[in-house]
C-alpha cells in the first residue's frame, strides 16, 4: 500500500509537530484513494511528551469536515519526540482505525524529522493487538 501526501500538507504536519514540541503533536489528513488532500492539525488534549489524545471538539469538527467533503480519514498522525517513528505498544493497543495510515513523525533528530506510515490491522477493530504493516509514503 502507498500513501501520497502533497508537499505543503507534509510541511504543515512537520511544522505542527515542531510547534508542539516537547509534547507529542497530533492530527488528521483527509483525502481519497490513498492521497492526502486536507490537513487537520489538532491540539493534543493530553499535553504530554509520551501520549496523545486529540481535543474532542476540534477532532469532531475535523471528522465532520472530512465527511462533508466526501473524503476519507486517510491518515492519523502524531509525533514521537525522542524515539523512532515505529508504533509503540501504546500506539498498537490504541489504534482503532484499520483503514487509516498511522503516520509517526520522529523528532529525535530535530533538524531532520523522519516520518513513517503504518497500517495497524486487527481482527476486530476494538482488539488491543494486531498486525503492523509499513506503508510506502510518497511526498509529491
Amino acid at each position: 500500500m502507498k500513501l501520497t501526501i502533497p508537499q505543503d500538507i507534509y510541511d504543515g504536519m512537520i511544522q505542527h509537530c515542531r510547534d508542539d514540541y516537547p509534547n507529542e503533536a497530533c492530527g488528521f489528513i483527509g483525502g481519497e484513494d490513498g492521497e492526502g488532500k486536507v490537513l487537520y492539525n489538532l491540539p493534543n488534549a493530553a499535553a504530554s511528551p509520551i501520549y496523545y489524545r486529540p481535543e474532542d471538539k476540534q477532532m469532531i469538527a475535523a471528522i465532520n469536515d472530512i465527511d462533508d467533503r466526501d473524503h476519507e480519514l486517510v491518515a492519523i498522525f502524531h509525533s514521537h519526540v525522542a524515539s523512532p517513528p515505529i508504533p509503540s505498544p501504546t500506539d498498537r493497543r490504541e489504534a482503532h482505525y484499520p483503514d487509516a495510515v498511522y503516520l509517526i513523525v520522529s523528532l529525535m533528530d530535530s533538524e531532520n524529522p523522519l516520518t513513517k506510515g503504518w497500517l495497524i490491522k486487527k481482527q476486530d477493530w476494538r482488539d488491543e493487538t494486531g498486525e503492523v504493516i509499513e506503508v510506502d509514503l510518497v511526498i509529491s
Partner: protein
Amino acid sequence: MSVKVNIPAVLRAAVGGSKSVQAESGQLREVLAGLGEQFPALKEQVFGPDGGLHKFVNIYINDEDVRYLENLDSKVADGDTVAILPAVAGGSRQA
C-alpha cells in the same frame, strides 16, 4: 424531530453504509437500544461485555463526551447530534 447519529467509517457496514442515521430522542441508553433494534451489528460493536459502552468507543452528544455527562443516562433531545467514534489516542509511552 428526532436525533441525528453520526456513524464512523468503521461502523458504516453495520448500518447499510450510511454516514448518519436517525433515532428517537430519550436517554442515551434508549437511543442506542432503538438503534440496536434496527441495526443489531451496530449494538454488538458499541457495547462491551459488561453491557456498558466499549472502552474504545467514545460517544458525544453535541460534541460533549458522554463520560463527562451522565454516560448512558445522558439526555438526548430532539435536534441533538450524537457522534459515535472509535477512540483516537496513542504515543511513544511504552506500556
